[in-house]
């Protein structure tokens, strides 16, 4: 088992963990966004609340969500370990360091990640925790023979407060920058770099990093300004 620990503590092994957990989180973002866009339906929360019920009661989804919590913690810890090591590898710094290339996002992944982490705590505390603690009202819909948590109303209440909307938009801006570099970076870490594919990966990464955070930001903005 010596080889396994050697691999996972090597620079490339650590980055492989970052890459795979990052890609898993990217998949999660897609599912999360598609589900949450149901908040925009004008149906008194029927579609969103029954969907939220399914997501919190289905055995398979619950199992995957434990994987998700584990992966995000692993990604964050590994990211911090890697970044601390990187910072320490040049103790005496330059008076001046100019970059011909090296975009803002790629040099600030840890700061962006920590912003995302802070956002996640706020986000989970506001919705997930309140639901788990049973602090939400229950609603009963026609055709559904059990009451469900009214997460929809909670979300609408939260997004009628301007500063919560602002914090959500900031969170999505951080996510945009993190993904702008992270998407491509994950494939490069895996060793997938080729003139044939890399431009495609970079292109998809850029579109993804714009569309997904924009989709998430749309929800609080729509609720605040339109509803």
């Amino acid at each position: 088992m010596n080889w396994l620990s050697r691999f996972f503590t090597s620079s490339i092994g650590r980055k492989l963990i970052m890459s795979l957990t990052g890609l898993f989180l990217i998949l999660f973002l897609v599912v999360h966004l598609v589900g949450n866009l149901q908040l925009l339906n004008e149906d008194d929360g029927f579609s969103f609340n029954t969907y939220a019920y399914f997501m919190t009661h289905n055995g398979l989804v619950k199992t995957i969500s434990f994987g998700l919590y584990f992966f995000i913690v692993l990604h964050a810890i590994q990211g911090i370990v890697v970044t601390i090591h990187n910072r320490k590898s040049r103790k005496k710094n330059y008076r001046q360091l100019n970059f011909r290339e090296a975009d803002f996002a790629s040099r600030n992944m840890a700061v962006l990640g920590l912003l995302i982490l802070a956002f996640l705590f706020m986000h989970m505390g506001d919705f997930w925790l309140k639901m788990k603690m049973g602090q939400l009202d229950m609603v009963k819909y026609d055709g559904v023979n059990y009451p469900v948590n009214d997460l929809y109303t909670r979300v609408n209440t939260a997004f009628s407060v301007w500063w919560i909307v602002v914090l959500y938009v900031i969170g999505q801006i951080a996510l945009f920058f993190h993904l702008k570099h992270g998407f491509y970076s994950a494939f490069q870490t895996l060793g997938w770099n080729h003139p044939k594919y890399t431009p495609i990966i970079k292109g998809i990464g850029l579109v993804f990093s714009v569309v997904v955070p924009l989709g998430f930001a749309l929800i609080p903005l729509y609720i605040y300004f339109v509803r």
Partner: protein
Amino acid sequence: MKLTLKIWRQKDREETGGFETYQVEASEEMSFLEMLDVLNQELIEQKKEPVAFDHDCREGICGTCGMMINGQPHGPLKATTTCQLHMRHFNDGETILIEPFRANSFPVVKDLVVDRSAFDRIIQAGGYISVDTGQAPDGNVIPIEKDQASSAFDAAACIGCGACVAACPNASAVLFTGAKVSHLTQLPQGDVESKRRVQRMVAQMNKEGFGNCSNISACEAECPKEISVANIARMNREYISSSFSTDKVMD
């Protein structure tokens, strides 16, 4: 042209060091190193200690002449070593900031000279072919794709100057190590030992204390030989696959 130079001066490994300001009169057709030669001649005449800097070939192939010029390894010109950089790329009256490459794994020996023996130890760990491959063989005796030979050659162009480490915000040595791994692994003679090689070289690179790769690509942009980050990807996939290989890859 009249120039003001702010140069890092440091007596030895132990001294803290600091910047000193000098005036120098140079001409546009001088190389950057010749401009420093002029300064050193003046310092010697004034019975002062000349500025120590590394140099050897002065034709862009040995890789010894690296230094930071206005915040960039090998200065402002793309794909150019310090010795091949000419003063016509600077303006009369300009102030130029000159620092040594900085990384914990590249300790300053004196002034602008850094100890890059960490690179030598990475090569010693596996950057070679263990058997005698003899004289250059006749063409096409060992069949190899033209594209693959070219790709190996591109990687082989690395002169081991350390600009990649110097430019990297993480002081990572993956472009250098990736180039050396890629050079040998793409050739039939080198392919045989590729699994062990990548394992040993990466292990040594980590042991030397270089940072991890964040895929920032500052290295590729500053490399005087324009080594591509595709070589880092190749090293990564070789390292990952050899780690899970059933062959014995490490002692």
